[in-house]
């Protein structure tokens, strides 16, 4: 519907000032990132022109589409219509009742308000996209790190560990042959054999620290059981869900429990700890609690800070509840299909 031309004559400077205020209010009221249609409605209300159109240049640079999806002829507007670019760029235009030309200040104000709102939305989308890129790249970095750890563990297993087992076996055979003829040589070989065995033990612990094969092979149940069996503090498993989860999620959950139990052993002065992992709709919740001294901090440089980063890389949140004197409860909430 077009406004009757004469009606616009009654719009005074006062009206312009009021409309300016309404415009400001309209923009403030718009929630961040509101759809362009909402912006048009707000502008139309503030301006008192229900025919107002907000049109955007199409990505291919050919023509404009308004927020209702109508093609708008910007170069040659329909009779009775006028066009005003939004903030000097030709990305977006306002198409309004020609009668409003008598209120140039009001139109400029409207265009400026539209420009601010659009710029705000654009910046927000840009920040959102950048955040998403950073999140995705952080996830890739962590996954690449995990893959590298798995590769290292496998290389150690198939390479150095395998060779040391073979070496031990060869030394045993050599000792058997030497023992009767040359007891001194026999005992020399025996001590070499002992060195090889100790190297194997050290290498085994190193490989397991880099990446536990049992996590790849059996998933969380076997890997958490193995952690608890090795924990220097009495640790009980309350629950661990059966079944497999995506590799990155299993690795994150594992490192949460591993780091948490290491912290309990190092700092907590606890007599016991409990591990609970539960599958909730859309997420995996990992909880480690102890009855120790509490007062754990998540500041920069601490192991917990690194753990929080690791959980965040999987899109999750790490919460630490550690009042002095009342134990520590650590909960990682990890998105999980």
């Amino acid at each position, binding site marked *: 519907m077009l406004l009757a031309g004469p009606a616009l004559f009654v719009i005074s400077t006062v009206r312009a000032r009021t409309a300016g205020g309404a415009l400001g209010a309209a923009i403030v009221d718009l929630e961040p990132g509101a759809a362009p249609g909402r912006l048009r409605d707000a502008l139309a209300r503030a301006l008192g022109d229900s025919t107002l159109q907000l049109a955007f240049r199409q990505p291919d640079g050919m023509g404009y589409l308004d927020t209702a999806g109508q093609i708008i002829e910007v170069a040659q507007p329909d009779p009775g219509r006028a066009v005003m670019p939004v903030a000097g760029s030709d990305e977006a235009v306002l198409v309004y009742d020609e009668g409003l030309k008598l209120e140039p200040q009001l139109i400029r104000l409207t265009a400026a308000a539209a420009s601010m709102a659009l710029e705000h939305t654009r910046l927000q989308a840009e920040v959102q996209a950048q955040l998403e890129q950073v999140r995705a790249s952080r996830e890739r970095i962590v996954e690449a790190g995990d893959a590298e750890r798995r590769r290292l563990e496998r290389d150690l297993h198939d390479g150095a560990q395998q060779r040391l087992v073979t070496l031990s076996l060869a030394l045993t055979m050599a000792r058997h042959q030497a023992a009767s003829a040359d007891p001194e040589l026999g005992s020399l070989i025996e001590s070499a054999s002992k060195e*090889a065995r100790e190297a194997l033990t050290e290498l085994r612990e190193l490989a397991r620290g880099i990446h536990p094969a049992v996590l790849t092979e059996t998933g969380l149940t076997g890997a958490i*059981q193995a952690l608890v069996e090795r924990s220097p503090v009495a640790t009980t498993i309350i629950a661990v869900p059966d079944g497999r989860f995506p590799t990155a999620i299993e690795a994150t959950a594992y490192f949460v429990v591993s780091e948490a139990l290491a912290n309990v052993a190092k700092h907590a002065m606890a007599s016991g700890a409990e591990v609970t992992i539960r599958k909730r709709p859309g997420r995996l919740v990992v909880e480690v609690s102890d009855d120790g001294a509490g007062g754990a901090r998540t500041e920069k440089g601490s192991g917990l800070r690194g753990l929080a980063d690791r959980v965040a890389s999987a899109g999750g949140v790490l919460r630490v509840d550690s009042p002095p004197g009342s134990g520590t409860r650590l909960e990682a909430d990890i998105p999980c299909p």
Partner: protein
Amino acid sequence: MSVTPDPEAAGPAARARAALRVVIAEDAVLLREGLRRVLTDAGLEVAGTAGDAAQLLHLVPALHPDVVLADIRMPPTQTTEGLQAALEIRRRWPGTAVIVVSQHVETEHLFELLADDPRGIGYVLKERVADIAQFTDAIRRVAAGESVIDPEVVSRLVTRPRRDSPLQTLTERELAVLALMAEGRSNHAIAGQLYMSPKTVETHIGNLFSKLALLPAAEDHRRVLAVLTYLRR
């Protein structure tokens, strides 16, 4: 894959006199050949060797070995092929004893392996092969139907810290007896190892079972599982 003739063809009398027949499944060639040599030197007969689980599953019905030695990680995925092959061998050819060797002994694998029937099953650290006497003893034990659990995994379970556990009420001797039971040793072997009379061993076992509120199990293989389950929880 390599094969020597099956003495079964020579009749049961020859088989009874023959050495224990072993098949080795190990993908590292040097280690496989080293094992073949030391086991042969130790008086066992290496009937065949395989480089992966598929070859192993072909060899077992063809050679009827007494004992299969399987590396847990083998091609193609290098994860738990040896364990899966061991379970399949037990399903398809019951009575074949199997020892799974691994560079990381994990209780999760152990329980998967023992779950159906722990008789004639072994699970040991790979580096045990360097102690020939101990390793051939393990082979003879599983061939005789015993279970063989690596002492390292047992000691990890026995020594892990606990709160409010009846295990803390066990005497040092009772703990030693418990650990050897968990390794799959018979009363006779425990008596020998701890320099006790079999009667004393029985007394210790009776006492510790009542302290732990475990039902006494007549057969060694049930006892192994009961004790390990208790220690693991």
